[in-house]
């Protein structure tokens, strides 16, 4: 593929408003790479692949204030659509008796499901993944209403994740005739999906529940021993900054701070 075409494809990742200027800059730089240096095709290709990283960075750094795609409602709608897509075949199977090989009696089935869920939570607990969403807050915006909203959002996501895994694994088990291994696949599915739910929650602003942007590294391990070392990301709407330590110790913690606190990077 021609390098210029690769840049055009990478440009699709950049936000529409900045795409033309972004592409102009990369085309200009490509000219210098090709004309002013004896670079091999592989080096030119490597240069063009960097455009994807840059375009993605520009996309992530763009304030997501007006973007429907970053909203909590969009996340729930997508999950709901996936859950519906998994539930419809399952409902059809139940109505036509196709699920009878799996559901011998409803009480036993419910008990099995409970045990699968408990096992999945035990795995998540042992891997310390359930605590992922926790942070210390120094914010007046993160009030009782914000906590309630955040908790409800998490609960709905967990419920949808459970229904996607439950219906999806039932569909797959019946379609592929692998009913015996369904509990195992369901448990793995629950662990992976719940892990995603927790990490997605962490990547969102606790106040407006939109994805945090402008992730940047703070400090360097070898030079900032006992100082701030980790990553920081901010809410595009200015609700605050989340500092996540790179190494979790008893004196470091994930902290959510108001953007208006004087020491906060967003208030500088």
């Amino acid at each position, binding site marked *: 593929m021609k390098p210029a075409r690769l840049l055009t494809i990478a440009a699709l990742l950049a936000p529409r408003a900045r795409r033309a200027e972004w592409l*102009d*800059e990369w*085309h*200009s*730089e490509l*000219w*210098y*790479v090709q*004309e*002013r*240096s004896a670079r091999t095709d592989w080096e030119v290709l*490597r*240069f*063009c*692949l*960097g*455009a*994807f*990283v*840059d375009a993605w*960075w*520009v996309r992530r*750094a763009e304030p997501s204030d007006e973007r429907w795609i970053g909203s909590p409602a969009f996340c729930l709608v997508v999950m709901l659509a996936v859950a519906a897509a998994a539930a419809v075949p399952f409902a059809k199977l139940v109505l036509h008796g196709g699920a009878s090989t799996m559901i011998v009696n409803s009480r036993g089935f419910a008990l099995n499901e409970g045990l699968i869920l408990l096992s999945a939570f035990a795995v998540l607990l042992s891997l310390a993944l359930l605590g992922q969403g926790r942070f210390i807050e120094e914010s007046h915006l993160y009030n009782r209403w914000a906590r309630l909203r955040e908790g409800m959002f998490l609960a709905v996501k967990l419920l949808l994740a459970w229904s996607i895994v439950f219906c999806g694994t039932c569909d797959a088990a019946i379609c592929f005739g692998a009913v015996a291994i369904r509990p195992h696949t369901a448990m793995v599915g629950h662990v992976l999906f719940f892990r995603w739910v927790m990490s997605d929650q962490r990547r969102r602003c606790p106040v407006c529940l939109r994805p945090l942007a*402008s992730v*940047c*590294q*703070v*400090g*360097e391990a070898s*030079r*900032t021993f006992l100082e*701030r070392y980790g990553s920081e990301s901010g809410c595009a709407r200015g609700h605050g900054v989340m500092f996540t330590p790179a190494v979790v110790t008893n004196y470091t913690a994930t902290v959510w701070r108001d953007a208006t606190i*004087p*020491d906060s990077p967003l208030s*500088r």
Partner: protein
Amino acid sequence: MAQAEPKLTHTSALVLQVIHSGVVYGYTIMDTTGLPSGTVYPALRRLEQEGLIRSEWEKSTVAESEQRPQRKYYKLTPDGRKALAASQKRYPLLVRLVPARQSGV
């Protein structure tokens, strides 16, 4: 309250140092530092977003007269100069890595 000195990563400090040395557009920054494009350009955007550098397209007439595409030049802002001074204290080898003022290629 006194403002804390901005702490930059070594890569960001290196890019600032190169811009300070007079190498002022993307390709030459990449060429001088030896860093890949996927590191240099996001670093430039981040530094610009933080107000440490500013970019400016050169006049099209200049580019046309030299029969080449327009360049996007990068310059240090006053905040960028302060951040660079702090980084030079933090990374003393930085000045040696990009010592003399070079002219744009």
